């Protein structure tokens, strides 16, 4: 059962604050009953938005999931910059999204199964708006990414709770199916998680990096037990500790504001994670669910770049074009290994297939390594 969460976001303190998008999930369960709200009917195969033009300012979307898969709803600006999103809308539920949209072109998007590019509807927002100053765009990047982090931490907490519950109940099958899903939210926001010292290795450390005197715990300890012996009867304390650690990091991450330079380095760092840990199958060596993490790292990198997009578009449009091309190339390469709503296992891929993925990541990571200097330039 999902706990209700209220994320209060304000645009206070933001330069050019009138243009700061502000998204939040109000946790409502009504049927799009807010006055003037935009109704979105989501199923496993469709995403009906009841209008495609709105006025600049705050829009409220009421999303109802009448499909059989958990879905997500996003409002994307150019380059898939997330203006607002609601994660983890279970079948039968309705949720609302409040989002402030300046004039421009957007895409309202449902993601049944929480995967892929989603089902998209063009949305035109009209009205007058003052252009952002360069400094404001830099500042807006921080806020834009913070919104993204908060959307992910909510789902991370929910899915980790479900995972821990399944582990403690000894439901191995359910725990196995939840393992890569919970990790998806974690892997998307690793640049933030890494800020908090010990928490990252406690949650996500692999056995060989466990320091002397510490217990091998976290996701990978439970992964090992789930996939090697299938016996998690002794893991209750480890599971509890995992949840406590995730709760702590969620609280901290929600409060953290990454600088644009941290975002740029985070976008690169996520791809380095892919290149060094996921391509090799080291990350999820027992479950072989590395492609879930791979995809989540790429999505997280994309989100960080999307937050920086207004700055980058102004300062180095050619770089933005290259990044768009190479992100699309990575997505296309990854898409070859989709399996239902999930992914093929790492050990099902041939060396040649892994090399194809590696080439695509290298082609993206080289231009991404140039973003930090563009962001830093004055």
């Amino acid at each position, binding site marked *: 059962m999902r706990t209700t969460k209220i994320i209060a976001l304000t645009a206070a303190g933001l330069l050019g604050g009138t243009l700061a998008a502000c998204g939040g999930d109000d946790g409502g369960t009504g049927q799009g009953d807010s006055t003037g709200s935009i109704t979105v009917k989501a199923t496993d195969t469709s995403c009906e938005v009841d209008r495609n033009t709105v006025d600049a300012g705050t829009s409220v979307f009421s999303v109802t999931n009448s499909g059989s898969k958990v879905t997500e709803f996003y409002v994307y600006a150019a380059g898939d910059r997330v203006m607002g999103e609601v994660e983890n809308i279970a079948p039968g539920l309705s949720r609302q999204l409040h989002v402030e949209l300046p004039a421009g072109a957007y895409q309202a998007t449902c993601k049944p199964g929480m995967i892929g590019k989603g089902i998209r509807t063009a949305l035109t927002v009209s009205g007058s708006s003052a252009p952002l100053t360069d400094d404001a765009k830099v500042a807006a990047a921080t806020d834009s990414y913070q919104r993204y982090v908060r959307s992910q931490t909510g789902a991370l907490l929910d899915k980790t709770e479900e995972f821990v519950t399944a582990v403690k109940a000894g439901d191995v099958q359910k725990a196995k199916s939840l393992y890569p899903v919970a990790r998806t939210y974690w892997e998307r926001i690793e640049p933030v998680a890494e800020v908090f010292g010990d928490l990252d290795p406690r949650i996500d450390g692999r056995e060989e990096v466990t320091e002397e005197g510490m217990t091998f715990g976290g996701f990978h300890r439970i992964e090992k037990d789930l996939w090697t012996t299938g016996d998690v009867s002794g893991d209750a304390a480890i599971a509890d500790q995992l949840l406590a650690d995730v709760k702590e990091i969620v609280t901290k991450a929600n409060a953290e504001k990454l600088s644009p*330079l941290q975002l*740029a380095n985070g976008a690169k760092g996520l791809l380095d994670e892919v290149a060094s840990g996921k391509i090799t199958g080291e990350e999820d060596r027992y479950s072989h669910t590395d492609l879930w993490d791979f995809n989540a790292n790429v999505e997280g990198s994309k989100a960080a770049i999307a937050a920086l997009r207004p700055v980058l578009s102004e300062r180095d449009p050619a770089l933005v074009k290259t990044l768009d091309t*190479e992100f699309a190339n990575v997505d296309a390469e990854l898409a070859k290994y989709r399996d239902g709503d999930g992914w093929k296992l790492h050990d099902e891929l041939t060396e040649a297939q892994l*090399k194809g993925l590696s*080439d695509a990541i*290298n*082609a*993206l*990571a*080289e*231009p991404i*390594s*140039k973003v*930090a*200097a563009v*962001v*830093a*330039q004055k």
Partner: protein
Amino acid sequence: MSENSLSRRRAIALAGAGVAGVAGAAAVGSAVVREAAGHDRSPSASSGAVEFTGAHQAGIVTPAQDRLHFVAFDVITKDRDQLAGLLEEWTAAAARMTAGHDAGAIGAVAGVPEAPPDDTGEAIGLPPSGLTLTIGFGPSLFRDATGKDRFGLAARRPAALAPLPLFTGDALESSLSDGDICIQACANDPQVAVHAIRNLARIGMGVVSVRWSQLGFGRTSSTTEGQATPRNLFGFKDGTANLKAEETALLRDHLWVQPGDGPDWMTGGSYMVTRKIRMSIETWDRSSLAEQEQIIGRRKGTGAPLTGQKEFDEIDLTAVGPDGEQVIPSTSHVRLAHPDTNAGARILRRGYNFVDGSDGLGRLNAGLFFIAYQRDPRTGFIPVQRSLSQRDDMNEYVRHVSSALFACPPGVRGNGDHWGTGLFGA
């Protein structure tokens, strides 16, 4: 740009006036004088620079350097312009690095702190070390395995650039063989050669992907008369009868592609064959000196033919011993590889020893990374290897595990010219 970024060794580089302008522009064909007598194709010292531009590519008749890093790439883009753009970018980087400069225009340490350096830095402080970078294009660049014309270049593929036939005994591993593009980096300092390939591979990411690469040491051939003949890992002098830089007429007839041989873009170029030849070191070492000399057809100590006294004595293939047997056995390496046995075929060998550690049985994973240049492989390597692969007694001790053929265009001529100009040009 600071002076530090201009070169790895300011003390040498800045000896010439106007260096900053030249290197700053990273101009092709304006390699900087690095040593007092270093501005030609025969560096006076092993640390000097070899001129990058010229009628032919450097790294072919250039006096063979001591170290090799060879790489073969697959082209992974489908975009012709992107590939041509990479060749231009590579050329600029190659011109800089062969002159002893950093790979990128900014340099290893002169950029902004937030950006990754455009040179990887491990060659800071090292001289040019005779670095040459030689490019070649493989048959698969023109048409893929299904026959598809990948970049509109199929009509430009020379007939001589047909995939090599399979020879008797070939144990080729496809992941170590062939490739769309190769670059041969030779230098007298292994770190300089590795630096060059590492930086070129980095520049190429997204356009090309490294298919295989090979490190080599201890040149196994001499390519000029001034160089002593080196030894391969069998312990024998190798390449005594090689084509040499001074043999102008022979080079014209056997090494350089002549006008009318094929498409114009290859005139002045040469075809490169590479073969990774694993040697059965341990069993060779247990064979008697007499057997070793019979197999090779030369004396192990002096390198002299079994019919002579000194290394460069002419081989007498007709000599018969007191026992009535041929002195140079019919199955010896030197006879089977000799031009007289192969309708006059001559090639320029430029190979290197390799040792890739040991294998799982504790055997030295070692041998010869054979490189040969010629005007046309159909009258060069192919007949020689046919002869060797069928009868050479040495086959008991060698196994060919990798094979590739590349068309190496003529040299880059100066400003505006680059590695892809001829191939992609009008």
